[in-house]
C-alpha cells in the first residue's frame, strides 16, 4: 500500500465530520459541506489513480473538477432562489 493510497484513505475518513455537517446541518451548512466533500473527492480520485498506478483513471478527477463548478452553482442557485 503506497503513501498515495494511505493519504486517500485518511482523506476519506476526514470526510466524516463534513458529512455529518451535510446531513445534520441547516440548508446553507449542507451546501458548504457538499462543496467541501466534492472538492476532496477530486483529490481522492487522483490519489487512488496514482497509488494504484493506473494513469487512465486520472480522467475521473479531471471530469469531476470540471463538473464541480456546474454542480456547485446549481445547488447555490437553488439555495438562493428556490428553496
Amino acid at each position, binding site marked *: 500500500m503506497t503513501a498515495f493510497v494511505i*493519504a486517500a484513505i485518511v482523506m476519506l475518513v*476526514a470526510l466524516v*465530520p*463534513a458529512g*455529518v455537517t451535510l446531513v445534520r446541518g*441547516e440548508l*446553507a*451548512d449542507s451546501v458548504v459541506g457538499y462543496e467541501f466533500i466534492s472538492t476532496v473527492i477530486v483529490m481522492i480520485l487522483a490519489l487512488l489513480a496514482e497509488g494504484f498506478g493506473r494513469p487512465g483513471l486520472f480522467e475521473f*478527477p479531471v471530469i469531476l473538477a470540471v463538473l464541480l463548478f456546474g454542480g456547485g452553482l446549481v445547488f447555490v442557485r437553488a439555495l438562493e432562489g428556490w428553496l
Partner: protein
Amino acid sequence: MIREVVTDALLALATLTVVLSSVGIAVMPGAAAKLHYVTPAAVVAPVLVTLAVFVREGLDSSTGMTVIALVFMVAVSPYLSHATLRAIRARPGERR
C-alpha cells in the same frame, strides 16, 4: 529515497490540510464561517497533491492530468465560494 521522503511529506501536509478543514467545517458556527474552511481544501491541498505526483512521476501524462484538475479547482473555487456566500446572505434568517 529523497524523492519518496518529499512525496510522503507533501502527502502528509495535504492530508493534514484536509483533516483540519473538515474539522473546521464541523466545528464552526454558521455557513459563512464554515465556508472559509473549504478554500484550504480546494486550493492548498490540490497543489500539494499535484506536487507529490510531480515529484514521484516527473513530467508525464499523470502529472499533466493532475495539473489540469488542479487548474480547474483553483480557478473555480473562488467563484463558487463567492456565489455561495451571496446565496447565504440572500437567505433571510441565516446565521452569518
